[in-house]
């Protein structure tokens, strides 16, 4: 490197920003946090709207199907529950107050 280049480099070095600049770094990270927050909010809003739209569209089909299924499954669920209870009492896994024996 020539003397001229050294001289230029020395002149350029006069206006170097500080090597450690906490204020600038903090500003960048704060702006980044704001951006991420906005992106997260936009994503949540989008997904919520999509979910609401899906429910509105599928509701008329899904709700009657669930109701029909629930009507058919209720006696079976009751029988399964009663059987588990009986088994629990007879095998001693359950205490009389329905808590688990440890």
């Amino acid at each position, binding site marked *: 490197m020539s003397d001229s*280049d050294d001289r*230029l480099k020395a*002149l350029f070095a*006069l*206006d170097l*920003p500080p090597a450690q600049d906490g204020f*600038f770094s903090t500003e*960048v*990270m704060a702006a*980044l946090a704001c951006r991420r927050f906005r992106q997260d909010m936009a994503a949540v809003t989008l997904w919520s709207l999509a979910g609401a739209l899906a429910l509105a569209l599928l509701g008329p089909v899904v709700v009657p199907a669930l109701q029909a299924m629930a009507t058919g499954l209720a006696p079976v669920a009751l029988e399964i529950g009663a059987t588990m209870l009986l088994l629990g009492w007879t095998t001693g896994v359950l205490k009389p107050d329905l808590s688990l024996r440890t």
Partner: protein
Amino acid sequence: MTPVAFDDGRRPPQDFAGLVERHQQALRAFLRRTCGDWALADDLAQDTFLTAWDRLDRLAPEANVRAWLCGIGYNKALTALRSARRSRAREAAYQEVAPMAGAPAPEDRLALERAMASLPVEQRAAVALCLAADFSHAEAATILALPLGTLKSHVTRGRARLLQILEDKI
């Protein structure tokens, strides 16, 4: 230059804070010399880091991060300088070389700023990368998206012009 590798999934902000801390000086210095406006340069540097965050996934593990950041910053500087909203006022201000807030103001520095102001923006950027910073010609050509020969020509002409002006003024 520091290679950096991030997870494919979550990108830990603390790593990015370290990246900002490591490269802010070089990026801001380059943008200050290219724009001539310290406030605008710092805005652009901040904007560059935000863009870099969005593009981290595209950064190759062995990439030269500093060069990559300077490339993003240079494109932002060109956009800012060319935009009708900003360029006229800021270029005029740069040509006048008014003292900048917060900047040291020795005679030599002002003379250098005047000299830099007289260069076209591509020459300024080439000089800022190759003479003021330690980028090779090849790295600078990549950053500025210029052919290597053009870059070398910009550096040579810019250097000669700077020295000529400085000889007269210092």
